[in-house]
C-alpha cells in the first residue's frame, strides 16, 4: 500500500507540510507536493533514497478541470532498488513558472525544454531554455488544451465529408 512505500514514509516525515496528496493506483505510487518544495523533495529522493534516474519529466494541462491548470510530473526510478515513484506538483496558469530540475539531473535539460515548448511553462535557472521541437518563431504551445488540433489558422476538423 501507498502508506508503506519506503519513499512515502520518509517524505511524510521530512516534508509533512508540503505533501498535498498520496495516491496509489494499479500499484503505482504518486505523491503530489507543493511547488515551493519540489526541488528539495527531488534532491532528497535522489541523494537519500537512491532514486537516481529521472525517467521522465512532463506536464499535463487540466484546463477547466482543476483549480491550478498545469501539473508537472516527474517519473523517478531507483536503479539499486528497482522501483518507481511519481512526483507531481501543480503549477497555476497565472504563475506559470517553476524551478528547474537540471540542478538535480542533467536529463531534465531537454525534457524541460520540451515542456517549455509545448506547454509554455517557464523554468527558473534553466541553462538553455529554448524551443526544442517547434521552430524558434512559433507562436503558441501545441499541447495546451486550448490550442486547436488543426493548428491556429485552419478550420477545425469536422469529420470526413463523404
Amino acid at each position, binding site marked *: 500500500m501507498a502508506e508503506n512505500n519506503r519513499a512515502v514514509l520518509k517524505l511524510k516525515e521530512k516534508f509533512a507540510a508540503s505533501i498535498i496528496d498520496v495516491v496509489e493506483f*494499479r500499484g503505482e505510487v504518486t505523491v503530489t507536493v507543493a511547488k515551493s518544495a519540489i526541488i528539495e523533495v527531488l534532491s532528497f529522493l535522489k541523494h537519500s533514497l537512491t532514486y537516481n534516474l529521472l*525517467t*521522465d519529466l512532463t506536464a499535463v494541462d487540466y484546463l477547466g478541470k482543476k483549480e491550478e491548470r498545469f501539473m508537472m510530473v516527474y*517519473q523517478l526510478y531507483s536503479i539499486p532498488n528497482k522501483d518507481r515513484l511519481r512526483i507531481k506538483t501543480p503549477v497555476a496558469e497565472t504563475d506559470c513558472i517553476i524551478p528547474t530540475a537540471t540542478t538535480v539531473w542533467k536529463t531534465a535539460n531537454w525534457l524541460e525544454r520540451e515542456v517549455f515548448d*509545448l506547454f509554455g511553462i517557464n523554468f527558473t535557472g534553466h541553462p538553455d531554455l529554448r524551443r526544442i*521541437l*517547434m521552430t524558434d518563431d512559433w507562436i503558441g504551445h501545441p499541447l495546451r488544451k486550448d490550442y486547436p488540433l488543426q493548428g491556429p489558422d485552419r478550420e477545425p476538423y469536422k469529420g470526413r465529408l463523404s
Partner: protein
Amino acid sequence: MAATETMTLNMGPQHPSTHGVLRLILELDGEVIVKVTPHIGFLHRGIEKLSEYRTYHQILPLTDRLDYLAPMSNNLGYILAVEKLMAVEVPDRAETIRIIMAELTRLESHLVWIACHALDIGAMTVFIYAFRERETVMEIYELISGARMTSNFFRVGGLSQDVPDEFVKKVSDFIDVMPGYLDQYEGLLTTNPIWLKRTVGNGVISAEDAIDIGLTGPALRGSGVDWDLRRDNPYSGYEKYQFKVPTGENCDTFDRYKVRLIEMREACKIVRQALDRLKPGPVLADCPQVCYPPKENVYNSIEGLIHHFKIASEGFPAPEGEVYQGVEAPKGELGFYIVSDGGNKPERLRIRPPSFVNLQAIEQMSVGSMIADLVAVIGTLDIVLGEIDR
C-alpha cells in the same frame, strides 16, 4: 602568432550519417569538436496531441510510427500501458507471441543499427549482410500482420488475430541460422583493426554521468550498469524466461557494440524458449467491454457486428487514474504515461522516447574528439528521429 578562431559548421538535416533528419551545429577548432548543438523537431507530427483526440484503440497505429525500426516494441509498450489502466488479463498464447515478436523486433532494430553503424565508419560488407537478415524479420512481420513496418498487430487484451501455421517454422528456422550470421559479423568487425581504431576509446561516458543524463538500454549497459527492465521489472511474462544481461566495462563505443551483439544472441535464446512454450489457445482476452470480438463473430452474427461497431466507433471508457508503463525497447526504456479522466480518450498520453533522452548525451560523448568520431557516436547512440520528434 595569429589568434585562432573556432569555426561553425552545419551538419544535417540531410546528411547520410545523421540517421534521419538530425541537424547538428558544430563548433570546431580545426577538426576537433568544441561544442555540439543538436536541432531536432523536423519530424514532429504531434502524436501526443493527436492521441488526445482518439480512442484507445485508434492510438495504436500511431505508435507504429514512433520508432519505425522497431514497431512492435512500441505497440507492446502502449498496449501494456492501456492494459494496466484497464486491468485486463492477457491469455498466455498472446503473451508468448508478443514476446517472440518483441525479441524479433529487437533483432531487427539491432541489425539496422549494426548495418548503419558499420557503414558510417567504413565497413560496408556488414551493411549488406545485416539487411539480408533483417529482410527475414520483415517477412515474418508481413506474414502475421500484412505489413512490413507498420504492423499494428497487437490489440488491447491480446492480438488482432492468431498467427498462421507456418509462423513457428519460419521463426524457428530464422533463429537457428541467426547466431551463425552473428559470428559472421563478429568475424568482420570484432578483430578488424579499422573497426577497433574507430570504436575503442570513442564516446566514453562513465556510469554516473550516463545515469545523470538519463541514458537507458544498451547505451547505459555499455557503461557497466547492470539494469534491464525485462529482468528487473518484468512485464508481459518476461519473468518466465532465462537470459543474460550483458554489460560493458570501458564505457566506449566498442563495449556498446559488444553489449548489443550479446543482446542479439540472447534475443535468439528468448525466442527459442518462447517457441517451446507456445501452446494452442485463445489470443484475445475474454473482456467484451474492452476487446474487439473475434472476426468470425463479426462476419456471422449481428451481435458480433454491433459489438465490433461499438468498440471501433466509441471505444471504451477507462477508469479515472494514471499509469506509467516502461518497456525495454531495443534503444532503451520506452515509457507510456496515460492520464485518464474517465472518458474513452486519454486526457494526456506522454511517450517517453529512449532516443530523445539518449541523444542528449551526444555533446558529452563527442566534445574533444574529431568530426569523424562524432559519426561513430551518432551510430552508437542508435537514435531514430521518428521517436525523438514524435
